[in-house]
């Protein structure tokens, strides 16, 4: 999004450690609610494992979304790509353990291709990323729903280990989420591509003038984001034992992934932020789900509260920023 630069020109005030504050606040809320409602099972090891399990699907896709937002773009097609990936995976596997590897490869290849298309439309055709990825999402969903109208195929038991297997007390999938976060953090802070990503997001024209191939950076970020969406689709196929064409849309992964990234302190304009804030944002959402369950709040007030919390979580640090926001 050459556009990104104007979406929000304000900079957060310096030295607000968004990630640890958000994480600590969420944790405190969780513990306090569990104690107040007397649901001590939520405070056991198993309770916390359940809490982190709620983070996985949104967490993986949000890590990818962090990259597109950092580079000054955005991706609204992730929810649809998640559905496509989940369905494709279970359709290819059809319960056959031998087909796991081909299915995973096919999903990753397709995801990368979608990311490439997104990136090309945005970087080469100069289409606003919001519209480009909205359009690509519609195209994906249309083709998917035209071909499949229900759960298609199934995943073999071996593949279900991805979502249900554990090492000791820790689920594989939770471990994967944190490994991915760590890997992306390394990439962002220790590699040239990471530096270019921040530079492009911070000031695309400046980066281009400084000799960066900003188009490639933009495309790279989109490919990575789509790959993460593909992984989320694989995870959901494993967890639901099959993929259905509505899993991504029902999960509202597009808007929720954007919301957690911004709540985590990444600037919507690009150039600033990182993965730990995003993970903290995902943790907040998981905590809210658990807290709402513990308190047994009704569905509709829950929506009102969630909307207010999304705004307040961003406002808490944004309010101190200088300049104008649009």
């Amino acid at each position, binding site marked *: 999004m050459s556009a990104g630069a104007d979406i929000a*020109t304000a900079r957060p005030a310096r030295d607000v450690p968004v990630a640890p504050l958000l994480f600590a606040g969420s944790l405190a809320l969780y513990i306090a609610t569990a104690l107040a409602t007397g649901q001590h099972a939520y405070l056991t090891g198993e309770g916390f494992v359940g809490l982190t399990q709620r983070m996985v699907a949104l967490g993986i896709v949000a890590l990818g979304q962090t990259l597109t937002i950092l580079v000054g773009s955005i991706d609204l097609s992730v929810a649809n790509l998640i559905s496509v990936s989940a369905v494709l995976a279970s359709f290819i596997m059809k319960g056959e353990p031998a087909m796991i590897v081909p299915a995973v490869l096919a999903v990753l290849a397709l995801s990368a291709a979608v990311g490439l298309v997104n990136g090309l439309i945005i970087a080469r055709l100069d289409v606003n990323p919001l519209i480009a990825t*909205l*359009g690509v999402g519609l*195209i994906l969903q249309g083709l998917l729903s035209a071909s499949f109208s229900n759960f298609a195929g199934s995943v073999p038991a071996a593949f279900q280990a991805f979502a249900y297997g554990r090492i000791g007390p820790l689920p594989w999938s939770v471990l994967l989420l944190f490994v991915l976060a760590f890997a992306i953090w390394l990439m962002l802070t220790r590699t040239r591509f990471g530096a270019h990503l921040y530079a492009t997001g911070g000031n695309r024209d400046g980066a281009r003038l400084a000799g960066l191939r900003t188009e490639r950076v933009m495309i790279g970020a989109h490919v990575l984001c789509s790959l993460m969406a593909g992984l989320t689709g694989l995870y959901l196929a494993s967890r639901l034992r099959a993929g259905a064409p509505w899993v991504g849309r029902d999960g509202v992964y597009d808007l929720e992934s954007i919301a957690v990234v911004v709540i985590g302190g990444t600037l919507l304009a690009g150039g600033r932020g990182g993965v730990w804030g995003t993970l903290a944002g995902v943790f907040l959402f998981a905590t809210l789900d658990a807290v709402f369950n513990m308190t047994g709040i009704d569905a509709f007030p829950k*929506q009102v509260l969630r909307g207010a919390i*999304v705004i307040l979580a*961003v406002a808490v640090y944004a309010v101190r920023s200088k300049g104008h926001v*649009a």
Partner: protein
Amino acid sequence: MSAVASHTVPSAALRFARGINVGLAVFLALYGTIAVLQPGYFEVEGFLNFLRRAAPLIILACGQLFVIAGGGFDLSMGSLVTLTVLGGSMLAGGNPENTWWTIGVLYLIGLGVGLVNGLVVTLLKVPSIIATLGMLLSLNGAALMWSGGAPRGYLPENFRALGRLVYRDVPVTGIMPLSVLILIGFVGIAAWLLHATVFGRQVLAVGDNPRAAELAGVPVGATRVLVFVISALSAVTAGILLGGFAGVSTAVGQGLELQAIAACVIGGAQLLGGRASVTGAVAGALSLFALFTLLNLMGLPQPLRETVQGLILIAAVASSAWRMRRA
């Protein structure tokens, strides 16, 4: 888009021509095809009926246009439409005597929603996409909370008439839907506000470059708040027409915000501000609605209609970006 800051603002006439070109050309092509498939659409009556159905989307697009011109987004429009319809049925309770004050209250609610959106963006510095996303969730929840999850009453007949009544035996046109008259009035006001007032110029200036606008003495904060108020009031208007046209339901506003944004963009509006025309937004909304109608008439399988929508959306914006670069 990086071009925004540097490229010179085109003359009003050129801007007008551009707005017409993208959206209107697409619309005429689509509408022509519709009329070939179903000749009734060629008649005045067919066209007016088409306008009657498209009126809510056009009004939403005009409201959204102000926010986009000012550099933001309003994602809360759709759920405000839902709130309007559900709230209207709650307040009026099927009694025609309640209609007028109910409409007054609905506009007050809209005013409140717009103010909150605007103040959250300008004072709390929350980017509009997040501020209005939060508002979307909250308003939807609030509408359902208020009504207990399903509409509790009917909309009275005189409320329904605003979106449903069609005057028969009108000279020249034959019929005249009341909602089309409302539409014309609304679009007229919107066009005047954006293109003929100081406020309109200020909106475009703020969207183009808020810092420069501020230096030039534009009240940036107040302008931003006002565009959200305009957007919210247009959502209430659209909600009244939709409720009138089709009655109460809980899903009425779903997804309308993205359609409104898409309509503006097809009409040549620049996302993140600075370039916008009401003619373009109207043409964009008409194109989008004509596209939905055409896809219905062609009997295409439902899912593929989405695919075609996606392709058209990208194509329209890519072509306008391409023209921008050549301009």
